[in-house]
């Protein structure tokens, strides 16, 4: 049994190790630190509030059920984001629908993504452009730009090489720029 302190000052890794070893109070602290951050990240990726809530819940349920696979020395933040991204990927795989629309609704017949982007304000345009990216690129952009992960950590989260993570983010940024430029010109 871990003798680690589970107070508010304890590191994420110490809290997770303590929870794995049976101290349930640590879970509540980890939940306080990460639930809303993960929900916000998933919301950015999907623009679907209900889905973001579901994936956040699934992430923490997975953490509870699979706590024995948390290895000492493993950094908690990339680990918990990896769980969230796995849950999201699994959900997308099942739904077989990669293209989500900014407001969660389907595009109208004859309406292109560019038409949709043109009508929105800057922040909404950025969100609308973001959801046009393939999931892998979207993930790399959000994890790098918004969540501040290094490419090595993104590689760990997305199960790819560091260079693949860099390429995904680079392509994502380029595509975003193109989408926003098209929206401005119109």
């Amino acid at each position, binding site marked *: 049994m871990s003798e680690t302190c589970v107070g508010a000052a304890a590191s994420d890794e110490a809290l997770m190790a303590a929870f794995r070893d049976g101290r349930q109070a640590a*879970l509540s602290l980890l939940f306080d630190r990460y*639930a809303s951050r993960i929900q916000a990240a998933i919301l950015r990726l999907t623009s679907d509030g209900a889905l973001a809530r579901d994936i956040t819940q699934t992430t923490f349920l997975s953490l*509870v*059920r*699979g706590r024995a696979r948390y290895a000492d020395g493993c950094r908690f933040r990339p680990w918990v984001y990896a769980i969230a991204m796995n*849950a999201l990927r699994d959900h997308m*795989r099942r739904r077989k629908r990669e293209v989500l629309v900014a407001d969660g609704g389907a595009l109208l017949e004859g309406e292109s993504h560019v038409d949709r982007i043109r009508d929105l304000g800057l922040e909404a345009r950025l969100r609308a452009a973001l959801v046009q990216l393939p999931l892998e690129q979207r993930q790399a952009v959000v994890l790098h730009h918004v969540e501040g992960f290094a490419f090595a950590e993104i590689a760990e989260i997305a199960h790819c090489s560091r260079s693949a993570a860099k390429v995904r983010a680079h392509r994502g940024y380029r595509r975003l720029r193109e989408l926003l430029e098209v929206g401005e010109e119109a």
Partner: protein
Amino acid sequence: MSEDMDAMRRVLMVEAARSSPVARPWRRDALALLVVHGAMVVAALAVALWVLDHPPTLRPAWGSASTVLLATATLAGLISAVSLGRLARQFRTTSFAVGALAVSAHLAVFWGPSAPLLHDADCALAELAIAAIPATITVLTLRRFAYRFPRAVSGGMAAALTGLLVLDLTCPANGLLHAVLFHALPAALVLVAAVAARARGVSYSHVP
């Protein structure tokens, strides 16, 4: 938003209190799978030897090498299917390389002309029957954590090679065509079926 969070927290606390972790440390998973695969090989050999009165086939020395390679690839495949991080990647590379070598060695053992006969299909049925239980248990084990295609391939390959290992030791037939049609092809079917079953199955936990 905060009500959602409170509800989520309550669900988690109940789950944490109720459940013991379904995913065990990977070494225990690997050991459990190894026991299942090993028991299946021993049981199949016992049936071949005592029930079917089918003595082990004596092969030249490089024939034994194929048996050792098949056993090594199975072990490496099991470890890579359930282990974590860099270790999983290393074992995966090893298992795929040794697995390819093992199948090649197995086919080389049966090198020679042959005319496949209907009763040769016994070998295919044996492969499917021997691999079925290890493949099922491997798929159920893999559902405890996140779906990863390479992980599913490693697990499926280990189950498929278990059947091939028994055939390597007991099949009295000769001929490359026999080995390809009634050994390697059913083994490939087991691999594909295991990967498909894992891909379609629901993950109980998405931990890496």
